[in-house]
């Protein structure tokens, strides 16, 4: 089972965290501090796995961003490495050649996508298409709702310009 997912930048800045096992806020900070100290210092040719407090942390670097997942000692590390890649491929498909900025400004969307891939620390869907379908459905429904908001905003703008014209 996956206990948590952390995305950290090369500078140790947190980009995304998702905890599937209970951790207090304080523990979370310690975990992140310890792991970033452990992972960011590792050389490029070494294993993508780190043993940590009886768990294993599988990480993978994409550009300046590290994706880390903490798993049980008897889990298959290579599989988890590919789960990370699966996640990144889906992000890539969603954002269109994803970059760190996409994740920084749209972290809530990244959360939605992650929720479609992992549930309760287990891989729930291994088909990219199935994930994309659900995400797309959510997006359209969101957009429908948003359109009405935009309409509202346009009306507001209209009133602003009216005010401006009156002022002039």
């Amino acid at each position: 089972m996956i206990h948590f997912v952390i995305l950290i930048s090369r500078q140790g800045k947190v980009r995304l965290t998702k905890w599937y096992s209970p951790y207090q806020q304080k523990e979370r900070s310690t975990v992140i501090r310890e792991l970033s100290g452990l992972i960011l210092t590792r050389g490029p040719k070494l294993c993508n796995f780190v043993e940590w407090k009886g768990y294993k942390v599988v990480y993978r670097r994409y550009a300046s961003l590290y994706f880390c997942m903490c798993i049980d000692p008897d889990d298959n590390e290579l599989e988890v490495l590919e789960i990370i890649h699966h996640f990144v491929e889906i992000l890539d498909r969603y954002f269109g050649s994803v970059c760190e900025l996409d994740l920084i400004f749209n972290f809530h969307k990244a959360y939605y996508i992650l929720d479609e891939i992992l549930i309760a620390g287990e891989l729930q869907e291994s088909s990219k298409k199935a994930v994309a379908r659900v995400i797309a459905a959510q997006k359209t429904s969101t957009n429908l709702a948003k359109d009405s908001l935009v309409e509202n905003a346009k009306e507001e703008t209209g009133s602003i310009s009216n005010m401006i014209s009156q002022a002039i």
Partner: protein
Amino acid sequence: MEQLKTIGRELAIGSHGGWGQSKEFLDLVKSIGEARSKAEEDRIILREVESLRRRIAEPDVPRRKMKDYIIRLVYAEMLGHDASFGYIHAVKMTHHDALPLKRTGYLAVTLFLSEDHDLIILIVNTIQKDLRSDNYLVVCAALAAVCKLINEETIPAVLPQVVDLLAHPKEAVRKKAVMALHRFYQRSPASVSHLVSNFRKRLCDSDPGVMGATLCPLFDLISADGNSYKDLVISFVGILKQVAERRLPKTYDYHQMAAPFIQIKLLKILALLGSGDKQASGHMYNVLGDIFRKSEQSSNIGNAVLYETICCVSSIYPNAKLLEAAAEATSKFLKSDSHNLKYMGVDALGRLIRINPDTAEEHQLAVIDCLEDPDDTLKRKTFELLYKMTKSTNVEVIVNRMIEYMINISDNHYKTEIASRCVELAEQFAPTNEWFIQTMNKVFEHAGDLVNVRVAHNLMRLIAEGFGEDDEGAESQLRSSAVDSYLRILREPKLPSLFLQVICWVLGEYGTADGKYSAAYIIGKLCDVTEALLCDDTVKAYAISAIMKICAFEIAEGRKVEMLPECQSLIDELSTSHSTDLQQRAYELQAFLCLESQAVERVMPLDASCEDIEIDKNLTFLKDFVQQSIENGARPYIPESERSGMSNVSNFKSQYQHEASSHMLRFEAYELPRPSPAHVIPQVSVPTPIADLVPVPETTYNSKTSQASKLPSVTDASSAAHGLKLHLDGVQRRWGRPTYSSSSGPSSTTSTEKTTNGVTHIDGVSSQPRDKLNESRRQQPEVSAEKQKLAASLFGGSAGKTEKKATSTQRAPKGNTRNAERPGATRSVSPETSKEKAAPSVPDLLDLGEPNPTSTTIVDPFKQLEGLVGPTPVPSPLDNSVKTSGLETPDLMAAVYTDLPPSGSSSGSLGSTIGDMYSADKTSNTATSAPSIKKGPFPQDSLRKDARARQVGVTPTGNNPNLFKDLLG
């Protein structure tokens, strides 16, 4: 005027357009991105949290604004700050009807709240409502929240609805419902124990995603109790076969592998089911062999499946042929350049040597390379392997290596682990007692505070009891050498408390026993101990007791004890100590010094630590007194169990539990007309699809499986038969090619057979690498002599048949005679000496430097190995079945490929953007991906993004140049 209008519109749209967030949020993220230190970041966030705290509490915050606030709170919380004041607003947001707001609310609460948070009770009602929604997206959002938030107490509130959703028309909902039930099982197995049949049913779901999700709870159920699921073995094997034969939709392919994640999960389940079960394992051999044959090692995921297959093969009832294939795959891992694969290889080797310890020999050098690798992860994994293959012949080298490594690491968690492993190995396999004590000393010295107290007590007992034999000389020799070494170690400045306790005790018992040291000298040393830096009360107590013992021995001998000034000051100090225990001991010592020798000898006999103190549990010596009292009219004693008031404790408890359960929270709404509470009889509460709710009685399943077992044979395994057994008819239709019929299988007896599956082929493969290995060994003069020695001492002994002894927690008293022969053994056992020992008894594989004896011994193990290979060509029924099943595959594969001319249409285009991760994929995909115009790292794309970034005002900072690079670029 017109301009002003457009500017105004742009401003307004800008707040939702672009990235869809407010300017304030973007500013926040931007300033965080530019923060140069953690302190600066904290300052920014704290300011933000303060302003949010003010604004979120204002009355009538617009919904859109509120959503933005909540997302900013999530951000603050993600960066490690407390945003608990906003939790209630996130909860409120889940009540909204608009989906985007609801989803934001659910997202926030799943990230904010832990399962035991007080606010959860406020969400349960919303979740109940949303689970009934017509919009499946709402249901999905609610189910995701269920997985995170519902705790043991609230499970009954949503359980019936979640079970209903197992029959939902949307597969996304069914899948999430299965995962939710899995979560419930993890939280409280009892709550879903009556629903197990539902999991079995979902295994046959028409959607592969749902089927794959169902494997998660089944894996947990099977690891808890494998025996109840043996009937599913054939189903699992059938599914795995279909998956491996690419019958799942193309979308489940991943990097040209057929649904690898599902394969891995199935292999894990099979490993559990087949463990120690010959019959169940028999069903699996075929498909496992197929997977080995089809395995491809160019991609990570292929290796992941291969590794899982090795794990499965080593876990189920052993099969020679599969084990050989597994060993071959393992050796490929070990020879790989990738550290990841080496790591997996070392792990796999550890699994294989449990079945056949000789497997390791072939890989000696690879293992030693891993041991000396700078990569800590690999090193630790290798130590794990060495730990598994330790025997009495190589224990010295391995434990010394472990201790060497242990000294240099600072990670306390791992230090504890490796220290306890050293202790365990030393206790089981120590060749001499001398060595054992030296090893323990080293472990204590460097990790003393991390090892179990029990270990210290064992060591003390060992020194005291000797080793169970009657050789007094050897025993006293050992004790005085222990005393010597401890006096030497005491010069070290910092020693762990536990180790000091052992030292004090040993010095007290045996410090003056051989007359080498004077009592005053030992007492002086013990006083020094109490002044040491890390000396705690326990050590002081040990020290003063030791001083007391030494004084007692002196008095008993009739000698005068002269009180050293530092000892006197110690006694003075302790007699005013805060610890009553220390005070007591100090006063006892003072009183002791005034006693005469005969009394002292009775109180503190010499070397009596091992004598049993008899404890009369029945208190027989009180019988007379009791008798007398009863005669005098006292009431007889009534045992506790017979006393009336507490007649039945367990009964009382169950009554209490019953009461507790009736006091449980009730979740059903009051206005519901149904009379019975939902959590008591879940079947009644929701009437719609009752069939799903009522647990399918076990008997129906039994009848199904008995039907299945009546079918002619398993080995001929035509997929149609499997479909029948599984009741996977629906699946068959959806996954399989419509034109496929079982008759097409045997008709494909083509020439491919020999090249792919023939026995001769296997023979060739297995002998070829070995030849290569042989060659490479000959060509490796640069392997240092030291390494070879290490290899010899580690692996050379593997021919020795000493098995790990079961689980003796104490060191068995053995090898004493040897100890007596070599009392003055060197302190630390170097690899050379151990090699000397190993060399005469065992043929050394690697010592090519000495030509005459080794040239003959090199041949030997290969002959043995050939013996292993030899039997395989002998035709066996199993062999045939492997061949027949293999025959079908080329045809099927061909069919799949011809079916889909633009192969890899989806993954191919991705492959180009992510290509550098998989160079092998790249070569195969570039051709197909070239015409695809969907996306990729186009310059326009990134330019547009850049422009957007500028518009928002985010510019790359100097210290973060890679920020804008594509993640996958």
